[in-house]
C-alpha cells in the first residue's frame, strides 16, 4: 500500500507559488530524502503531505485517505526543524514529551500501565533512557531529536517525517542519528526526511525527491547522481522562476 499519494499538488502563500504541480508516491517501508535549495518549498511540501496545510489544488492521500479526513494521528510521527518556543523555555521532562506519543491512542482516558511500558521501551530504543527525567531544553540538539523520535515510536507511528533533524548537530552524533533512522526503517517504518546535506542523503536513503517549487527528480540516489536535477534545482535560483522545467522521473 502507498503511504503517501500526492497528485498535482499546488500551494501558494498569498500570490506566490511555493509548490507547483507536484505528484509523487511514497511506498510502505521506503526511506525518502527530500532535497532542494533554500526556499524551494521542501518544508511546505512536507506539511502538505502530512495535512498540516491544504493544497490550493491537487490531492494528498495518507494511507489511502484524503489528508482532510485522515484521523489516525498516531500513525504519523513528526520531528520539526526548529525547536518550538515552548521547548526552549517550558519545564518539561524527556519522559513527559515522549509520553505525548501515547496521547492520540488514549484520548480522554487515563494512561495505563501498558502505555507507560511503551514509553519506557521507546526511550530505551533510541538510547535516551538515562535522560528520561532531564528537562528537555537542557539536552543537546542530537538528544532532543532522539526525544522526538522516541515520541514517534511511542505513538507506534508507521510514517516518520523529519524536517532537517540534524541542523546544528555535530558530525559524530549525526552519523549515529542516521544509523538509528536506518535501523528503524529496516524494521518497517516509512521515513520522509528533509536534509540539506546531499552527501548524507544519497548515502542513507532509497529514494531521492528533489524539488525547486516543481518536482525535478524522483528516483534512486544513483539515478539522481547521474541526472542534471541537482544543477537545475540549484541553478534555477535567481533566474526566471517561471522557466518551464519538464519533470523527470527515473
Amino acid at each position, binding site marked *: 500500500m502507498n503511504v503517501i499519494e500526492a497528485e498535482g499538488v499546488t500551494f501558494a502563500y498569498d500570490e506566490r507559488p511555493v509548490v507547483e504541480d507536484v505528484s509523487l508516491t511514497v511506498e510502505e517501508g521506503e526511506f525518502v530524502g527530500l532535497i532542494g535549495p533554500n526556499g524551494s518549498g521542501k518544508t511546505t511540501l512536507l506539511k502538505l503531505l502530512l495535512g498540516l496545510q491544504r493544497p490550493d489544488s491537487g490531492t494528498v492521500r495518507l494511507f489511502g485517505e484524503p489528508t482532510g479526513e485522515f484521523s489516525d494521528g498516531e500513525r504519523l510521527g513528526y520531528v520539526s526543524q526548529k525547536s518550538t518556543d515552548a521547548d526552549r523555555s*517550558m519545564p518539561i521532562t524527556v519522559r*513527559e514529551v515522549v509520553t505525548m506519543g501515547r496521547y*492520540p491512542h488514549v484520548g*480522554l482516558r487515563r494512561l495505563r500501565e501498558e502505555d507507560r511500558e511503551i514509553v519506557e521501551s521507546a526511550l530505551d530504543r533510541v538510547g535516551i533512557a538515562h535522560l528520561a527525567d532531564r528537562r528537555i531544553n537542557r539536552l543537546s540538539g542530537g538528544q532532543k531529536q532522539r526525544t522526538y523520535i522516541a515520541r514517534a515510536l511511542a505513538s507506534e507511528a508507521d510514517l516518520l517525517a523529519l524536517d532537517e533533524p540534524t541542523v546544528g548537530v555535530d558530525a559524530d552524533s549525526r552519523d549515529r542519528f542516521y544509523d538509528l533512522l536506518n535501523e528503524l526503517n529496516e524494521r518497517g517504518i516509512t521515513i520522509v526526511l528533509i536534509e540539506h546535506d546531499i552527501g548524507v542523503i544519497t548515502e542513507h536513503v532509497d529514494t531521492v525527491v528533489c524539488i525547486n517549487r516543481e518536482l525535478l527528480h524522483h528516483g534512486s540516489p544513483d539515478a539522481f547522481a547521474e541526472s542534471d536535477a541537482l544543477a537545475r534545482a540549484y541553478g534555477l535560483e535567481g533566474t526566471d522562476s517561471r522557466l518551464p522545467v519538464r519533470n523527470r522521473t527515473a
Partner: protein
Amino acid sequence: MNARTSFADLADSRRRLLAVVVGVPLSLLVLYAFIYGLFPVLYEVFWGATCGAVGSWLVCSGFLQRGFTTGLLIGIAAPIVGTYLVNRQMALIGEALAHTAFAGVAIGIFLGSFVEWQSLPLFAALVVAALAALGIQYISVHTDSNADVPIAIMLTGGFALGIAVVSYGVAFGREINSYLFGDILFVPFGNVQLMVGLTVAVLGMVGLTHKQLLFITFDREAARIARIDVWFYDTLLIVLTALVIVAAMQILGAILVAAMLVVPVAAAMQLTNSFTQGMGLSVVFGELSVILGILFSYQWSIATGATIVLTAIAIYLVALAISR
C-alpha cells in the same frame, strides 16, 4: 477491512454520543447536589471545628470564613489554568478577560436594580467574560495580528464598556469598588457556592483534557499532526480561563486577578524540570499566597487583594533566588 473499520467507528461515535448525552446532565446533577446539598454541611462542619480549635475572630467571623473559602478555591483553580497559559506565552489573557468581566459586573449590577438576585453581577460577569474569551479566540484565528493585539483591544474595550455602564447607571459605590479592587468581606454565601461549582467544573475539565491541553501547549504542530483538535482545546482553555477569572475577581478585584494565574506559576517554573510537578507546586504557592496574604492583610490592615499579590511576588522572588 474498510467496512469493519467504519462499523468500529460508528460504534465508537455512538458510545461517545451516549457518554455525552448521559454524562453531561448526570455530572451537572451531581455538581448541583454537591453545591447545594453537601457543600453547605461540609462548610459548617469545617469552620465550626476550625473556630472551636483556634477560637480567633479570624476563623470565626462569617465574613472571613466565606472569604477564606473563596480564596482557597482560587488558590487551586487559578494556578492550574495559569500553568498552561504561562507556558503558551499567554500570561496577559487573564488580564484582558478580567477587564471584560468587569463590564459584565457593571451590567449585572445595573440589571440588579430590576431583578433581585445577589449573584447576578457575578453571573453576568461570567457570561460576558466567556463571550469575550470566544471573541479573542475568533479574532486570533481570523486575523493575522499577533495574539497581543486582540488582547489589548479586549482589555481596554471591556474596561471602557464597564466604565460607560457605571457612569450611566445609578451610584454603585461600594459594590463596584469591591469588584474592581476585590473585597474579602464582601462575598455572599451564594457566591461561595458559585465558586465551588466553578472550581469543580474547572478541575473536572482539566482532569479530563490535561493530556490534550499539554500537547497543544508544548507543540501545536505535532498536536495537529496527531489529529488533536487544536481549535477546540484552544477554545476550551480560554473559556476555562474566563471562569477562573470571574471566580477570583471577588477577592482580588478585576485589576489584580490575573496575578493569581501567573505569579505562582512563574515561581513554580523556576524550581522544577517537570510540567506536572510544576503544576502541583504552583497550586502550593497559590494557596500559600492566599493564606499568608489574608493573614498579613489582617495584621497590618492592608487591602487583601493587594497583600495576596504582593505575597505571591515575594514567593516568586525567593524561588528566583533559589534557582540561581
